[in-house]
């Protein structure tokens, strides 16, 4: 229930932000129908102007779904068309619900995956459409503070991943690097520089671990 409300709100704001960024209602809906991954979609429309960087960032953010699939594949035991359908529903929420029911047996777990995934898919797309159409009717979205919605949404997505000093340090380093390179490169490239920071940060950690 609370997941449903959060999804509705998140979908509404995505639809509005996407249209405010210059995407058509159609394009906004296609993103929700086919990309169906909140963080990737937000990142894509945020970078917008640089298509290649936008696609790269959305893809890098979607990489975690592959790991979810890895955890789910044995649990779901799907093949063929059902696997193709299940794949589209592999997102944060459906994975969390399925793994949360793991102790109650594979049937309960599968039911949780399909019901959560399908419910969110329908809600997310309906909310996106409403948000997109509503924002399209506004004369100047900036006046209503819509440009402040994306950073707030990214912050809400980031905060649960910030437990402990390690991730916090990485986040600060990413912010500094992105802002420092900003005057010299297109916006999308500044985001990708942050991906480079993540790689470097992991390499340093591994070296420290092997030295200790």
């Amino acid at each position: 229930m609370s997941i449903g409300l959060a999804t509705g709100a998140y979908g509404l704001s995505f639809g509005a932000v996407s249209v405010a960024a210059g995407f058509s209602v159609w394009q906004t809906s296609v993103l929700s129908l086919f990309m169906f991954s909140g963080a990737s979609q937000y990142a894509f429309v945020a970078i917008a102007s640089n298509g290649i960087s936008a696609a790269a960032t959305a893809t890098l953010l979607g990489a975690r779904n592959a790991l979810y699939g890895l955890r789910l594949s044995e649990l779901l035991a799907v093949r063929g068309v059902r696997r193709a359908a299940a794949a589209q529903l592999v997102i944060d929420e459906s994975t969390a619900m399925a793994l949360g029911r793991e102790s109650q047996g594979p049937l309960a777990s599968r039911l949780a995956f399909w019901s959560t995934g399908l419910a969110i898919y329908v809600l997310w797309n309906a909310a996106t459409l409403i948000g997109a159409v509503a924002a399209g009717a506004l004369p100047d979205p900036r006046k209503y503070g819509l440009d402040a919605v994306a950073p707030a949404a990214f912050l809400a997505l980031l905060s649960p991943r910030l437990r402990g000093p390690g991730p916090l340090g990485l986040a600060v380093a990413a912010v500094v690097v992105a802002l420092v390179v900003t005057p010299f490169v297109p916006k999308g490239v500044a985001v990708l520089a942050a991906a480079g920071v993540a790689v470097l940060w992991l390499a340093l950690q591994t070296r420290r671990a092997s030295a200790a």
Partner: protein
Amino acid sequence: MSWGPLLVACGACYVLKLSGLSVPDRVLADQRVQRLTAALPVALLAALIALQTWVSDRSLVIDARTGGLAVAAVAVLLRAPFIVVVFLAALTAALLRLA
């Protein structure tokens, strides 16, 4: 906005989802792959927050969005639900622009 990158990104995101269900465990179970996949969202989301708040046309600026982000941060610390966080951010930015 052009359709090309949009469709490519949609396809790539789907292939990633499908690969998790299909690819043999060895590749994705690799510790380095797992750690990188956990670290990427932290770095990318943090950078996106900064760029969406303090950048306009490739120059650094402080405007109403900074106030919106500050209020959003307080709301997140108080564990407010998502809709409250984004609504307060938008409201703050809109009010700052009126002032």
